[in-house]
């Protein structure tokens, strides 16, 4: 347990409590929505691919759709583009299979888009993750 004696709380303690609460909250959310863990893992894997500058993940606002779009920000040259796209799809397919298994369905669809800049999202969508 974290002691909540105000006199013992300096700014660092406060920061620690805040972080712990944040971690607890994140852990609870992940248990309730296991797809988020898989989404985070895939975004991290995509970020490691050559020529990837950033990854942004988009989903419907209600968080109910099994379609999730992974936008890869990249200025990859034309010749390497297909290779990057196939590598990204390959990782996405593995995650799709994990999600299908976890949810006991067959309809997860993780889409890869290579973009040169991020556009505004559609009003029915929201960004659920963006790599720092």
């Amino acid at each position, binding site marked *: 347990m974290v002691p909540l004696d105000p006199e013992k709380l300096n700014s660092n303690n406060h920061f620690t409590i805040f972080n712990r609460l944040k971690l607890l909250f994140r852990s609870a959310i992940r248990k309730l929505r296991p797809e988020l863990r898989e989404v985070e893992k895939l975004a991290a894997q995509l970020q490691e691919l050559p020529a990837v500058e950033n990854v942004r993940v988009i989903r419907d606002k209600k968080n109910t759709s099994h379609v999730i779009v992974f936008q890869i920000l990249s200025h990859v040259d*034309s*010749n390497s583009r297909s290779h990057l796209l*196939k590598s990204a*799809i390959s990782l996405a397919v593995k995650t799709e299979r994990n999600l299908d298994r976890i949810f006991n369905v067959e309809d997860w669809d993780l889409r890869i888009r290579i973009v040169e800049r991020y556009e505004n999202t559609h009003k029915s969508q929201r960004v659920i993750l963006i790599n720092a």
Partner: protein
Amino acid sequence: MPSLNIYEQPAKLNEDAAKSAHTEAPEWAIIMYFYAALHWINSYAYKRNEIRLLQSLDKTLAPHERRRRYVKKISNYTGDDELYISYKFLFDESMIARYLENSELECINKTSREYYQERDIKEFVDSLEILKRALKK
């Protein structure tokens, strides 16, 4: 083409048309490679008496989505993700070639034709070959 079934015929015709469009209209070649893939999938389903799975009366599911799920399923049976990866690759690229989807061509200020003239068409040919090989397993 008397020995080909009704799905193999358009598959081969699309493939031939795609080959002849490589230089003059590469964006159409991409689209036709995808449609060749689509008909090879249909042919696979037809031979296994599963074509009804792609022709469901359930109108809530778009035909492309129904086929995508079918490809994922048969890719799972054969234990070869390359089938599904190649199908997704061809589908995604054909959507860009058709609709300039994703604004990506807008922001680099090119037409679809110019964009695909810079790409190596061999990647698309290879993807279709991978798909066809996987369907023969």
